[in-house]
């Protein structure tokens, strides 16, 4: 992307390098702990390869195997290893968030089986969607993660009525998985509503930082998920060999979602720019990536980050009209509107 646009995004590159080093260290810390049929998975900025100062260590111990009470012992050992003060100091990370969704043990069956309905709690939806959009197994045991992810995708593809079917009297077929798209949209709404909930629950504490993250990294996550759904359509992905079969779509989604959110967006731009030069696409890509690079630069600056964290809502709003943050968020939102 940098080559095509003639840009260099220093903050994106630094964040990636920091993430690579951190992930390697974390893999060493849990070496030999996870058993077969389990995976330790990180989420958040680590999974996105966007590690900055004060990134959270959000992790899940995923179990996908036969009933075995022994997993609890393994989970406790892993939790001890990943909760040591020294990790947070040496790697510059923060403990998992307060909500309890992360730093926890999760079984595959509810994640796969409960989509919608009473049993699909906020935690369950979050775990499921993040397993698709923002998750990375650490260490050697990744089979459970791969398996669960494909099973989740299969649910959405299997139960999407009329997906891939040709419509009456029309040659075209629907490639975009709407069941999946709807759940991504539902998760985005959940994030937005949770933002308001956290404001209610925590008052001003961290408001401005959460706000900017909602407008940038969370929005990027949602947009990349939407793009994943549209990428199933060969017209969008420019893949003439895309087969109209369920496994082909699962394969397509699994491969696309294995990229980081930024890489997914970059793939869209590079694919289309390679086919036909478009000034609009070029400028849109530049705007999007430059805004995000600036955002990561801000997060990585501990002074600015701390100031943002302490900023009260009334202070944040009164400064907004003349502040770069507002411009940055607009610069980020506009490219997505153009893309979609």
């Amino acid at each position: 992307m940098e080559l095509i646009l003639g840009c260099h995004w220093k903050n994106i590159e630094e964040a990636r390098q920091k993430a690579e080093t951190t992930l390697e260290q974390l893999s060493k810390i849990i070496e030999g702990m996870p058993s077969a049929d389990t995976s330790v998975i990180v989420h958040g900025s680590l999974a996105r390869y966007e590690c900055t100062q004060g990134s959270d260590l959000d992790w899940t111990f995923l179990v996908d195997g036969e009933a075995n009470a022994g997993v609890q012992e393994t989970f406790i050992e892993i939790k001890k290893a990943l909760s040591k003060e020294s990790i947070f100091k040496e790697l510059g990370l923060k403990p998992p968030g307060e909500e309890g969704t992360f730093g926890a043990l999760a079984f595959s069956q509810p994640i796969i089986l409960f989509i919608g309905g009473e049993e699909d709690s906020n935690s369950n939806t979050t775990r499921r969607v993040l397993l698709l959009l923002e998750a990375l197994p650490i260490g050697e045991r990744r089979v459970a993660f791969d398996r669960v992810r494909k099973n989740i995708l299969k649910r959405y593809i299997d139960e999407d009525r009329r997906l891939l079917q040709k419509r009456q009297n029309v040659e075209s077929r629907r490639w975009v998985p709407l069941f999946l798209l709807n759940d991504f949209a539902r998760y985005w709404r959940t994030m937005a509503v949770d933002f308001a909930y956290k404001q209610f629950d925590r008052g001003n504490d961290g408001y401005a930082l959460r706000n900017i993250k909602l407008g940038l990294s969370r929005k990027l996550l949602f947009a990349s998920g939407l793009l994943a759904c549209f990428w199933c359509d060969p017209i969008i992905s420019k893949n003439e060999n895309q087969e109209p079969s369920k496994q082909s779509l699962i394969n397509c989604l699994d491969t696309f979602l294995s990229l980081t959110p930024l890489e997914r967006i970059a793939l869209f731009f590079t694919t289309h720019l390679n086919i036909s030069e478009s000034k609009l696409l070029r400028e849109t890509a530049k705007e999007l990536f430059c805004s995000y690079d600036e955002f990561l630069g801000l997060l990585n600056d501990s002074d600015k980050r701390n100031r943002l964290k302490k900023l009260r809502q009334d202070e944040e709003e009164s400064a907004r009209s003349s502040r770069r943050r507002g411009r940055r968020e607009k610069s980020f939102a506009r490219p997505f509107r153009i893309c979609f």
Partner: protein
Amino acid sequence: MAFIGFSTGALMLGNFQEALRLLEGTSMTAVELSALRLPELPILVGALPKLDLGKFNYISFHAPSRFSAGEEDGVIELLRQVPEGWPIVVHPDTIHEADKWAEFGNQLAIENMDRRKHEGRSADELCHWFEQLPNARLCLDLAHAHQCDRTMTEAFRILSNFGDRVCQLHISELDSTGHHFPLSYGSIQAFMEIASLIPADAPAILESLNPLQEEEDEQQQDWIEREANRACAALGRCEVRREMPISPMQVPLSPASVLA
């Protein structure tokens, strides 16, 4: 018309003579002579010239599933006695020196592995083996592929990459510990999802463990026919009929009628 049959090891573990005798009274047109355990190999190879296999249109040979590097040369020497037209099915994790197996050319059929193994389970892992043995073909084990990935996406990937190498299929159900069982509704449904990608003429060898090994011949043969029909339903192929040879009169079955 695709051939269907059984692995002798699945019908009667360690007793290929008895397995062949049982198959005589069935409509099976294919057989895999199985020497899964190393001590069985010289016995089976020694018996080959005397076996009456005229009933079968398709015959393959399964090499031992475990032997040491020191035993590899001995295994290869014995396998040279397998007739050239019979594919030799081999587990990639048993191969110590790939160069030594190159002489078998396209007679060699590499089988995709189950979760207990550390290689040969996925399209990416199989790629490594076909790079080393470019003329080898593929024995597509649907149960192994299903056990590794219940969504059958990995089976799809294997077929997308190596579908033109498929020389035979293995069909059964596998539990999480790697034991073979007769087909269930779930596995039939799963195999049906990718059946259209499987070469229509690939012979199917069932590895469903015979649950009636102590029972009367007729009971066992009935089970063999039923299990073969379940496999046909899973593959979207015509049913086999016991009383008559395969003919154009056969009709494809719906899973519901087979499972009724």
